[in-house]
């Protein structure tokens, strides 16, 4: 499997990740090498094998639906890049 520079640009777009133009070729090469490494997996028969997501196959634990947290908005917004009146500010989305 060989990824091209265009593939890398497309993946970076999906991840909303800025990448330097001069690095694109090296990412394409590294990712292609990684995919080569992964080819080995395809050679192994995994028919009937259950995928493993948690080492102890634990299911999601549920808790009682009680309020346990206090309101920490001011504290959390202290470290935000840009806030106003308790709101996080981003560039205008809708004209």
């Amino acid at each position, binding site marked *: 499997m060989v990824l091209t520079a265009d593939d890398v640009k497309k993946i970076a777009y999906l991840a909303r990740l800025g990448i330097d133009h001069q690095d694109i070729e090296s990412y394409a090469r590294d990712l292609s090498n990684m995919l080569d490494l992964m080819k*080995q997996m395809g050679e192994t028969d995994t028919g009937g094998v259950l995928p493993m997501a*948690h080492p102890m196959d634990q299911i999601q634990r549920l808790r009682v639906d009680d309020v346990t947290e206090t309101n920490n908005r001011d504290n*959390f917004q202290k*470290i935000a890049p840009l806030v106003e009146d308790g709101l996080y500010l981003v560039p205008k989305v809708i004209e």
Partner: protein
Amino acid sequence: MHNKSIKEIAKGLRCGDFSSVELTQLFLSRIKQHAQLNCYVTVTEELALKAARQADAKIAQGDTSLLTGIPIAQKDIFCTQGVKTSCGSKMLDNFIAPYNATVVEKLNAAGAVMLGKLNMDEFAMGSSNETSYYGPVKNPWHTNSVPGGSSGGSSAAVAARLSVCATGTDTGGSIRQPAAHCGITGLKPTYGRVSRFGMIAYASSLDQGGPMARSAEDTAILLQAMSGFDPKDSTSLDLPVPDYSAALDKDIKGLKIGLPKEFFGDGLNNDVALVIEKAIEEYKKLGAELKEVSMPNLKLAIPAYYVIAPAECSANLSRFDGVRFGHRCDNPQDLADLYTRSRGEGFGKEVKRRILMGTYALSAGYYDAYYLKAQKIRRLISDDFKKALSEVDVIMGPVAPTTAFGLGEKIDNPIEMYLSDIYTIAINLAGLPAMSLPIGFSEGKPVGLQIIGDYFAEDRLLNIAHQYQMVSDWHRQIPKGFE
């Protein structure tokens, strides 16, 4: 004073030989003296001295917690309220954590004195500590070599006596490999044993925090304080925590050690293999029996890991978007530009590489071929371990194929760096506990032995490591210049 064990320090503090403030001052001055190692991202001098004064007062009132007044350091992946928590990244260079990780809460409650936050590979992605935004850490045994990673600041600080012990995290070997490269003792607990709350996520189904110290005895004490169920972590397991120190002195006569033939084949450095053979001989003298076991799917661990870990990382790191915290680019043109540039400027190259890999593996049409396939391979690897551990008590082998490599040696070849994780990665996929302990040197650089146990057998691992350390002094060696 800085070479003493936790128990020796606890005794010294209570006999009035020295105070926690004096001890803390000594470590703070050693950190300054050896700043060139680059172990610390942040030194919390004032907070440390305040905590030390409180510890001294508590001890005067009869406090008996072994960790009270003991200087420790936190890997900079654990959130510390009011203290910068960078995760080794420019993205979080301005991030002052608004709350404490559970591990931090627990160690504070146990009375430990935090000296500061330790350098690490960016977002724990790396095996050499060279991906850190704050620059590489140097190995105190050989300052042209890497300390290992991603918990490289932790291992180097403990080896150089810039902290009594430290926390680390291990997603694919990030506690064990740096412990091996710096000649210290480190333990990756069973997945779910130590809370992940407030521990910045890399690959959530693999990440696990654990202790790093000079001896198994100290490691047991630190693990005791870190372990336990946490309702704030949905993958934390609600099981009782045994007394890890109580198990240390048990006789290991009749211990069945499994040696996977796949661990000792091509790729393992001859010198490292010899040092490991010697340590295993020592275990035979202690009454252990050896048995060859097999891990037929071991070679698939690296490809499976480099699908699962990047896939989970690409999802976890999507939270860094320049909106609520962390780095934000200047003058964003629109929302897409804000996301793209903030992330582009905030993340380093290795993190980007893994986000790209993970995004690709999870993108439409590829999920079954990569992520799902890797999860099935994960099951096969886990089954290999289950089978082997039904025949033997523990598995032993190398931690890494070589001793610490040179700074800059592998940084331009990511695949080669990934392949060096071959002996540690499979354990994370299975979720098993494993530790690394120092067993000798090759050309002046430390070699570690890996011991892998069954789920929740941390007490057994510590016992086995401690018995070796009772008849050897590798764990007492001090790098030159740091005596």
